[in-house]
């Protein structure tokens, strides 16, 4: 006997059900509720807010990361990835860096995938509205940048490369120069709740099924061994992210062009050691990036908290043993490739968790190798005295001659690749032979069923995708409401 909506504290039947409360879901729900629609949001994780744990700590990993952060895309070159599992989704655990999609990317999506109404001018009002709500802004002064970011800029300048600060969703009050990171629990979730939307947390959706004129959302509350529930709705928006959204659709028997074209930004990291202190407990993720070799390769700063530096130094036992004395002189950096490979999200019955596979494109392996070498050159120019690549069997690099050897020993299969950017698993567009949803997110052949998250983006954005996800989610929900 299935429970129905009332046992969850919501109606058994609603106008709109939104699955997931991340950047796509909470924004969609806020706009639906503001337009007077009755909305229930189902969230797999808990509603915690930004202050429930220190950023990038073990507590945060346990509270807010799906599978405790232990998720991997399997394949010849495994890629560790991170997904959030909490109200607010990825916006609660990332660094808040903000980009608009480059014009060339939008042009590619229009020409190759037939995405309609996706000129820069179409997205501009959505970018601007979201940027205002999220307080997208630059640091109050150049001196406010962490030392590790200043060194990246110094190295880039010495190499003659372009380096720039990337804006973040950070709110700076006159009285507080440190600023406060923004997220969905700071913005669109309060908005949607104020407008009357209902947020049901710790509720896992297993699938959707058509029953008459309605969609029935099926799931379980409070863990996978609890009693199942059902909620019927005229419109369902699946916004569970680039892995969970295709998994929900495929479990529901909707698999045409679904989950077969997952893309991501493969990233290789290293730890740089400098002669002076460059990191402290408040460094966060610096917002400096080098785009000289974009879109193929980008460089940036990674989280350099003591426990994360320890993870990255796993292969370097001596440095690890001496970490208490050296950690403050160390900072983590990354080289990110555009991501031309593809992966798949598969449902393995009877398991609840989807299996993710990924095959790195040969061009990406080349970009990662070149990117690592160039990043090492930049950091030596910035004054680094030792570089520790997060690559199995890699040597410590201390000189230009050492760095020249990267091409000889680097193998992508041995690199501990990671990513926090996943997308393209349910691509949008009018090119029906390769797309799963129309230009505005409705699933082909499924009236009333929509997707509004990173899954929609047809290919790599080449930059942090969350600004684009939000702009497209806003564009799509306003079109729905028209």
């Amino acid at each position, binding site marked *: 006997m299935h429970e129905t909506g009332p046992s969850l504290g919501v109606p058994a039947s609603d106008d709109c059900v939104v699955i997931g409360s991340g950047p796509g879901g909470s924004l969609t729900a806020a706009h639906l509720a503001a337009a007077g629609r009755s909305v229930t949001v189902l969230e797999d994780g808990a509603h915690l807010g930004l202050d429930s744990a*220190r950023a990038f*700590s*073990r507590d945060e990993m*346990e509270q807010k990361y799906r*599978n*405790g952060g*232990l*998720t991997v895309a399997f394949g010849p070159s495994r890629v560790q990835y991170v997904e959030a599992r909490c109200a607010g989704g990825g916006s609660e655990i990332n660094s808040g860096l903000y980009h608009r999609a480059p014009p060339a990317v939008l042009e590619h999506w229009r020409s190759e995938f037939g995405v309609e109404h996706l000129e820069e001018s179409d997205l501009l009002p959505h970018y601007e509205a979201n940027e205002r709500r999220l307080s997208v802004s630059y640091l109050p002064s150049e001196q406010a940048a962490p030392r590790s970011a200043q060194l990246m800029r110094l190295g880039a300048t010495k190499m003659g490369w372009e380096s720039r600060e990337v804006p973040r969703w950070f709110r700076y009050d006159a009285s507080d120069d440190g600023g406060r990171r923004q997220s969905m629990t700071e913005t669109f979730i309060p908005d949607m709740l104020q407008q009357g939307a209902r947020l049901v947390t710790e509720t896992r959706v297993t699938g959707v099924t058509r029953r008459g004129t309605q969609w029935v959302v099926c799931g379980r509350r409070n863990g996978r061994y609890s009693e199942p529930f059902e909620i019927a709705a005229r419109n369902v928006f699946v916004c569970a992210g680039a892995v969970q959204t295709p998994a929900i659709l495929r479990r529901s028997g909707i698999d045409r062009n679904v989950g077969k074209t997952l893309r991501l930004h493969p990233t290789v990291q290293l730890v740089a050691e400098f002669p002076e202190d460059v990191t402290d*407990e408040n460094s966060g993720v610096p917002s400096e990036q080098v785009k000289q070799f974009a879109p193929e390769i980008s460089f940036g700063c990674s989280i350099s*908290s*003591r*426990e994360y*530096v*320890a*993870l990255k130094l*796993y292969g370097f036992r001596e440095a*690890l*043993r001496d*970490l*208490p004395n050296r950690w403050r002189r160390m900072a983590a950096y990354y080289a990110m490739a555009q991501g031309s490979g593809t992966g798949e999200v598969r449902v*393995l019955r009877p*398991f*609840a*968790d989807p*299996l993710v596979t990924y095959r790195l494109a040969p061009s990406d392996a080349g970009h990662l190798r070149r990117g690592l070498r160039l990043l090492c050159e930049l950091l030596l120019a910035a004054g680094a005295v030792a570089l520790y690549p997060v690559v199995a069997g890699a040597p410590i690099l201390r000189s230009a001659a050492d760095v020249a050897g990267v091409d000889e020993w680097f193998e992508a299969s041995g690199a501990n690749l990671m990513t926090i950017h996943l997308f393209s698993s349910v691509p949008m567009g009018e090119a029906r032979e390769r797309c799963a949803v129309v230009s505005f997110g409705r699933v082909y052949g499924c009236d009333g069923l929509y997707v509004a998250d990173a899954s929609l983006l047809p290919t790599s954005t080449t930059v942090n995708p969350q600004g684009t996800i939000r702009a497209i989610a806003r564009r799509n929900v306003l079109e729905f409401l028209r």
Partner: protein
Amino acid sequence: MSTFVRSVVRAVLADADGPADEALETEAYLFVERQLSRLPDFLHAPIRVVSRTIDGLALAVYHKPFAALDLRQQRYVVATARSSKVASLRDAMRFYESLALFVREGRVADA
């Protein structure tokens, strides 16, 4: 499995940092157990098999399960698994070691 995990955590932390710290060991062990339960469900059986293989390595070398070895012997088994030609053994050891180190270094950061 719990006895094995606790022993591995103890060996890893001692290997990395000298004298034993029982409170740290307990905290790290409990974290590793929680993380094991959070692994994607299709990985639960494989991690058990690989962990038993490491236990079997101890049996093969010292004729005792891993938990019954002294610290020097445990360190030898850990180092052998870490540098094994079998990727799954290396991965399992990286899993246990990384999580234990994450607790140790995060504990300092939280203090």
